């Protein structure tokens, strides 16, 4: 990773992230978080921030297919990795089956947890296309939703399973 030192001696890092299939090269600080890289540097605000401490899961993105809380991943750690954000889940305005299922099952209320939920579900169903309900609950246990009681979210993911 190329390091650039500014006039006051602060180091910056030249990183290239592959986000939803496209390459983005930016200069970041050592403490720039992935969530802020996405939201501030490349203006993808679909990834939400609910706590910035790794507690709520609303900032969930996939890093090489695995769900991570992007508020506790450094941009420099994501250098060279494949990142999937909510903006990359629907293809050319065609919803992913999980997204369709969220809409059909009324699994969305305020929608703030939704991007993170969809990505956690996506990672689960890619890995395990026929999960049990318990496995679904475990997969989204790190994604807090204050609105739905998870009832319809679990239903939506179960409905979408087996169809990935």
């Amino acid at each position, binding site marked *: 990773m190329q390091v650039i030192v500014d006039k006051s001696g602060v180091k910056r890092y030249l990183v290239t992230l592959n986000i939803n299939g496209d390459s983005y090269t930016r200069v970041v600080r050592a403490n720039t978080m992935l969530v802020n890289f996405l*939201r501030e540097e490349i*203006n*993808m*605000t*679909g*990834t*939400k*921030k*609910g*706590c*910035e*401490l790794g*507690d*709520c899961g*609303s900032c969930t993105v996939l890093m090489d297919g695995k769900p991570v809380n992007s508020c506790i991943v450094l941009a420099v750690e994501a250098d060279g990795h494949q990142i999937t*954000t*909510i*903006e990359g*889940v*629907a293809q050319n305005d065609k*919803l992913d089956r999980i*997204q369709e299922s*969220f*809409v*059909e099952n*009324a699994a*969305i*209320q*305020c*929608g*703030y*947890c*939704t*991007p993170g939920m*969809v990505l956690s579900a996506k990672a689960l169903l890619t890995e395990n296309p026929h999960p049990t309900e318990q496995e*679904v*609950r*475990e997969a*989204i*246990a*790190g*994604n*807090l*939703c*204050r*609105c*739905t*009681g*998870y*009832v*319809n*979210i*679990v239903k939506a993911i179960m409905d979408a399973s087996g169809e990935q």
Partner: protein
Amino acid sequence: MSDNYTQIGKSVPRIDALEKVTGRAMYTGDLKFPNMLVGKLLLSPHAHARIKNIDTSEAEKLPGVKAVITHKDVPPIKYGLSPARWDETIFCVDKVRFVGDKIAAVAAVDEETVYKALKLIKVDYEVLPAVFDAFEAMKEGAPQIFEEYPGNINTEINQNFGDVDKAFKEAYYVRTDRFDGQRTYQCPIEPHATIAYWEGPRVTVYSSIQSVHYLQYYLSKVLDMKMGDIRVLKTYVGGGFGGKLDPSGLDFSAVVLSKKTGRPVKMFFDREEMFFNNRGRHAQFMELTTGVTKEGKILGVHANFVMDGGAYTGLGVASAYYAGALLTVLYDFDNYKFDMLRVVTNLPPCGAQRGHGQPQPRYAFESHLDNIAEHLKIDPLEIRIINARKPGTVTVNGFKVDSYGLKEALEKAREISGWRDKKGKLPSGQGIGVGNGGFVSGAGYPIYRTDLPHSVATIKVTDDGTSAILYTGAVEIGQGSDTVLCQMAAEAMGYRYENMKIVAADTDLAAHDFGAYASRQTLMSGAAAKQAGEEVKKLILETAAEIMDVSPAELDCKEGIVFIKANPETTKTFAEVARTYFVKNGQLIGRGSYRPPKLGGAHKGSAVGTSPAYSAATQIAEVQIDQETGEVEVKEAWDVHDCGFVVNPALLHGQVHGAFYMGMGESIWEEVLFDQNGKLLNGNLAEYRLPTALDMPPVASELVDTVDPNAPWGVKEVGEGATTPTMGCISNAIYDAIGVRVKNLPLTYEKIWRAIKEK
């Protein structure tokens, strides 16, 4: 009956589902404006201290800092959400009253600079003794938090209806129980953000807010501006539950900082600051005395409560009244006494959280009633049926209750839960419990005194008639109001939901409405939308009558098709008729306005608790307790709701799920903790424990049919009422499982374990 409707009574997908599921929905914190600055508040590190001096000079010198403001930069006007006690200022003037009280605000080029600048503000404090307990605060010699509240008593309520003493004398059994509640927080997953920018003399404020109207009103009052010079709007809001109802320090500061710098300013709370600034649920200390007949009929109730208000009033006077007022609705009794002291302490101020003031008293009463039933050897569900209010009655404190399906809800819940096979028959460590609740469908009176209508709506049909736009001040915060209001408008117009668009919650572009609180929008905003739709339909039928050469009375319109009633084959499309109207008369517009009738009695505080319609709900929960550890598992839950006519069943059941979820969290895990200096101990989402998907049991949500005569199509509320029975039913289920009563919330594993040990 709902068969006659084409747009309501149907689970259409949410109008905002696509935006939300693709991540395209922009919440306030997602918005950016050119040249925008970042702002933050400086909060007090002390619970109670005199401010001797504030020196902002170092902060101002920091490169990148564009403005620093304190109380000297804002008008010295006091406010509070409810005008009963205005005791807050934008920034503290002479004293801070809780850890997290607002001292100053900074705007700078980026977040890092803002945080550095906050550290450079020097505040000289003289630390004062503080008090963190409502009962300590009332003792002689306790630190006085406000001059105007001697003994730290902020609100005192003494209401007396009928003759409680006489009722107790005549009773077969009189019982007193005391239950304690805890302080909880709404914790919407979206933290509050505000953006303000000025154009000439006028400011635009984007805010994560539950009421654009009240924010506009209070900004104008406190900043001494004309309401017309302030535009308040919201984009998407990530949940509220009462936490985004009060105007926040962010809103005021963003406006002032943006004025001072001439640039847009974005401000936001981090998660911990949400705990300081959201007005969470009051902890209530509740003594209940009830007298009953041998058969279990309630003769009289005395509710003797204390609530910890935290440092300021906000909406707290209303919370205090609500706590007692609504106790009279569920069960019918003629004698009632309600005493309440709301006490100020050096903790963050409390306000309205889902169910406003009422869930804890319901927890207490439902637990108390089970104790009474046990003494009388009556089945707990039976004693509730015996006392359930009947429709078309008036409560002892003057609330007119028209439709009311509590008895039916109890009976249905008994069926679907298998109550008869389970109550008293479950193996040791397992238990089943019942609790009732309900709520107002909108408050009968606004928060501040005004004669404005409660809800206004306008519908504009687009020029070619192919869509219609509903303009409403109702605030979508996740509950689904944008969707159900469009369904209601389309139904009234004879139009299609799919062709509806909505412009909501914008004080410039939309129509007036008081917003999302007191579970009011389906009934009140819905009434205005219905009326506006009916006006559009009337104009459509009149225009079609001319074209089709019949009288308007011979026509009807459904799903966008105008037809002759006697000969439904002869049709015109809504769109072509609308276009004809437009060519002849200009824009096709319908208007609606709603104001509840005069409600309530004449006693002091009689306005609180009035409503055009009351919901009712029964919840039953089954729990399993690990006798070794006290660990509780909620295994299954049933909710039967009387919420009038249901506009969108899928959204409605979603509200029930979420409400049960929140109530369950408050029953077992959720509690905000402070150290002995009033510092927050668990202001994050790991230690303030919201239930996860692994904690949530299956919930069966069912309905009883009622149609309220005072509401459009007979609708009633669901969102808040459904959280009010939960703590009671879980408390009763735990008691059934272990045979001993834990009397203070939350009913944690440790408390249960101790109770089992001490049994």
